[in-house]
């Protein structure tokens, strides 16, 4: 059944609203796509299956944003980084629940859905974040 669900960015965030952290796995070459895509960039297959992604990973790099775009100004300064999950897939996101000066490359982090409410306006997606594992 799940195979009929489109392998799109929209669907990635819809899964998040249901508390699921899912990627698209190419049935032909096995590549796991995050975000999911409708065409495998590796082998051009269009056949995928949904796989649950591990929530734990390590911080590859990070920055502390002081000058933020209008909608994030109230949160600055805040940390964002790129996390490599246990299966090797990489994903960026905010880092919360840890003092900014304690963040280091290699820190173990885990994904949290937060309140996972969708925004009122387009694109009506939720925002996940990372916290110390």
């Amino acid at each position: 059944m799940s195979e009929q669900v489109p392998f799109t960015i929209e669907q990635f965030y819809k899964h998040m609203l249901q508390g699921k952290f899912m990627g698209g796995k190419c049935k032909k070459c096995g590549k796991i796509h995050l975000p999911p895509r409708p065409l495998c960039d590796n082998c051009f297959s269009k056949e995928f299956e949904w796989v649950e992604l591990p929530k734990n990973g390590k911080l590859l790099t990070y920055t502390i944003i002081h000058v933020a775009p209008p909608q994030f100004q109230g949160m600055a300064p805040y940390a964002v980084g790129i996390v490599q999950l246990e299966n090797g897939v990489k994903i960026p996101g905010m880092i919360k629940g840890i003092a900014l000066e304690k963040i280091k490359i290699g820190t173990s982090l885990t994904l949290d859905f937060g309140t996972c409410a969708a925004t009122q306006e387009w694109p009506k997606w939720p925002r996940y974040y990372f916290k110390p594992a």
Partner: protein
Amino acid sequence: MKGKPIASIVSAGLSRFGKLEGLYAREIFAEAAKEAYERCPNLNPKKDIKALFIGHMGESYEHQGHTGATAADWAGLMNISATRTEAACSSSGAALRAGIFAVLSGLCDVVMVGGVEKMTHRSTPEVTEFLAMASDFPFEQWHGITFPGLFALMATAHMHKYGTTEMQLAHVAVKNHYNGSLNPKAHMQKQITIETALSSRVIAWPLKLYDCSLITDGASCLILTKPELAKKYTDTPVHIIGSGQASDTIGIYEREDFTSLTAAKLAAQQAYKMAGLKPEDIDVAEVHDCFTIAEIIAYEDLGFCKPGEGGHLAENGETALNGKIPVNTSGGLKAKGHPVGATGTAQAYEIYLQLTGQAQKRQVKDAEVGLTHNVGGSGATATVHIYMRC
């Protein structure tokens, strides 16, 4: 063995760079076009120029898209083929390459390529938001990652892997501000000290205000022709002998490594191969220092030093005006300014001045071969061109 010319620059123009109050982008472009016409009395613009390719990143700034036709009209080139190229901060690098395609194909004998951006009338948060549009929306912008933030992610990774320091980043800023102080068209014409750079306010740690390029208004253009026609228009053309362009993932998180830009390395390889030259043959270069870390990564991606040694190259003064390989003699994006769409051909304008001996106080002695390195966004596009004195 040096490669053969693929196109020739017979003239070039640059508007003033800075806060140009009360001017609209098309009017600034007309200023650049006028200089290019005046430099080349043998050119009859209305008769000779058959196409315009113009880089322009954002219609948000002035609520104005359709820049090709608009710029052609204001440059007095009514009714010609006019097309906008958009590749974020590499928009006019892409315009230059499109112009080369047009000339090399035989379709056009003479074309104008250029770029423009009008930015300073908008607030910093607005500009921050507009610039971020060059990065991935669903996973980067959506989670609060700004444009400086993306380069800060690269800086943190470079520091961790190679021991690059904030002091080395500051050296890039001090050098480019010094060069800018010698350029009468630069946005910032004042020198700064290492202390000023290091103590400036944090934008996206570890990048501070003086690690960031400027929000600037400006326009630039070049007149290109076939190499065999160049002498008809000027005695001192500059030949383009290498051109490369490549792309990469829009999201930097999908890349193997955050300490170099694959698109820039591939574009450089293409350009060097076409030119039949090596990095050590380059006499002067304009590289895309949108942030100081980007200049250090550029040294490495262009082969001016080994990976990880870029910080030392800056610190040891090897890329200063009197160094082994002078980089960003114009002041770079850091001090000359970064009107996004105009930057690629503004870099080529500086190389044109250097190779024709017109760079005045910042002239690199006996410069014969120059290079430009123009990066779009956080490295999803890169264009590299190599130029030779006639």
